[in-house]
């Protein structure tokens, strides 16, 4: 095999999800009436902004060889905290700050801090106390959601302060600012993972933790940072969720965790750790969103979505195994 075909083949393998996304979009555009519109594509991006942000945090921890099941509940708690403070009806306290724009950084910092704290708690138990990330974050998944129920009393907060909601309404080149925030997050974290020592170390820790420890990399510190980041990013997802729904309900975001997992796996991240890139994850998120939109447009019952997502995850795992065999031939 000459180097050029080899390079081309490797490029396709590395970016397989993007090709799948393109393929799916083309097929839908041809066969589903009204699918091929800018508005539809904008909607695909817009609808996936919360899921996208959440998937970044999840992917970071999984690439580092661990697991964070708590992201969904953390997002809900952050959204509820923002909702209670800055909503004016329901259980909202309607806190007003002057000038009004001050509510944006304050609410954002609150959401990030709530998420970061829970992430630090998870990280501490997993890394220092050496407990299984699966169990620790499963526990967090449960108790954090419980906390949402406790502080809201099962009720909801509505009418988020307009200054914060502005991010969901104001559009730039056809997309609301919330979608741009998601895209910016993907760009920033993709660069961090691919271009900085921190990102490189996370990937290597996911690949062989012993080797990185022996090489003098501060494994524990890096892993705790990864958990804090996953929590804070989940907090950001919660902030976006509060904006999107203009408030917060006690069951906000239920089921997002599994979609995030699906997106991460479809995006080419291996649950064994050490493998996967964030651009791939974004393609996975968009792929899910594109399929949801197609199901809506075809007027299929929404219940089909779950079946299709499940099959897609299966397909992604099979494809991953297939990719491995091809790569082995290439080397």
């Amino acid at each position, binding site marked *: 095999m000459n180097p050029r075909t080899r390079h081309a083949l490797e490029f396709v393998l590395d970016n397989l999800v993007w090709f799948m996304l393109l393929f799916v979009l083309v097929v839908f555009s041809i066969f589903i009436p009204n699918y091929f519109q800018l508005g539809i594509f904008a909607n695909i991006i817009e609808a996936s902004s919360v899921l996208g942000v959440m998937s970044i945090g999840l992917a970071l921890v999984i690439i580092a060889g661990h697991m964070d099941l708590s992201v969904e509940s953390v997002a809900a708690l952050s959204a509820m905290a923002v909702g209670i403070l800055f909503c004016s009806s329901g259980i909202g306290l309607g806190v007003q700050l002057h000038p009004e724009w001050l509510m944006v950084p304050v609410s954002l910092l609150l959401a990030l801090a709530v998420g970061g704290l829970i992430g630090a708690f998870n990280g501490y138990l997993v890394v220092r106390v050496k407990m299984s990330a699966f169990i620790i974050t499963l526990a967090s998944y449960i108790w954090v959601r419980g906390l949402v129920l406790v502080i809201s009393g099962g009720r909801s907060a509505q009418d988020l302060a307009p200054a914060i909601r502005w991010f969901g309404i104001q559009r730039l080149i056809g997309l609301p600012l919330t979608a741009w925030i998601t895209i910016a997050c993907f760009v920033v974290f993709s660069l961090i993972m691919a271009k*900085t020592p921190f990102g*490189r170390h996370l990937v*290597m820790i996911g*690949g062989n933790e*012993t080797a990185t420890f022996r*090489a003098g990399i501060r494994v524990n510190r890096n892993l705790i940072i990864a958990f804090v980041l996953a929590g804070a990013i989940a907090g950001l997802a919660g902030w976006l969720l509060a904006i999107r729904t203009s408030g917060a309900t006690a069951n906000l975001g239920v089921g997002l965790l599994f979609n995030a997992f699906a997106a991460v796996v479809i995006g080419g991240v291996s649950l064994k750790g050490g493998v996967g890139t964030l651009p791939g994850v974004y393609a996975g998120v968009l792929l899910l969103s594109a399929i949801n939109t197609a199901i809506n447009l075809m007027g299929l019952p929404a219940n089909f979505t779950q079946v299709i997502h499940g099959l897609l995850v299966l397909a992604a795992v099979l494809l991953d195994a297939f990719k491995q065999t091809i790569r082995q031939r290439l*080397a």
Partner: protein
Amino acid sequence: MSEPLLVLDNVTKNYGAIEALKGISFSIGRGEVVALLGDNGAGKSTLVKIIAGGLEPTSGRMLFEGKEFLARSPAEAKAAGIETVYQDLSLCTNVDVVANFFMGREITRKVLGIPVLDERAMEVVVEKALASAGTRIPSLRTNVEHLSGGQRQAIELNRFVHWGGKLVLLDEPFAALGVEQTRRGLDMIRQVASQGIGVVIITHIMQQAFQVADRIVVIRQGVVAGDVARNKTSPDAVINMITGETLAGAGPGS
């Protein structure tokens, strides 16, 4: 002779009630190659881990360059100038050759104050290091998982030759190498030692020890059973030291 590079003074290590090391004392000079021999379970790997910062000794002390020394982590040992090549390879197979070569010591340049990996600079260094050692690897950007066992070990060996430091610990470094690569590996060790770096090599193969070492230290049941210059001993004498003079004590439990 000038002061030794590393002195071990009655170093012990207990795992619960089990005494893995009962008091090890010996020293390594600059530019000296010491072969550490001993039967399985004699405590060689434990000793290497203690020097390399992977384990803390239960008691005893170490002097490195004449100063009290105790590495609490591999990072501390590395900072002091101690490089280690472990028996089970310490490579991350999910990243490429360059990333492995620079694991934890990446070359970066600042972009807006943020350290960014300088891939090109690293690739140049790796290319040069591998070429000068005569190691051929098709692409430095291939993930290590696609390389053969020999190629992987070559990367590890080239890595320590490149980083050097002051003391190099090699725990059975040639387990996966062919005849020609082993010969080259032994040459590398001599070359490293000639730069004034101390080398400790653990091996099971008597022939390798006699080929490369200046001095042979034998560990048996957690104590130093022999410490002799290579040219004053013979393989048979060393085997006797390893097994405990008579064959009666040479069983697996000893």
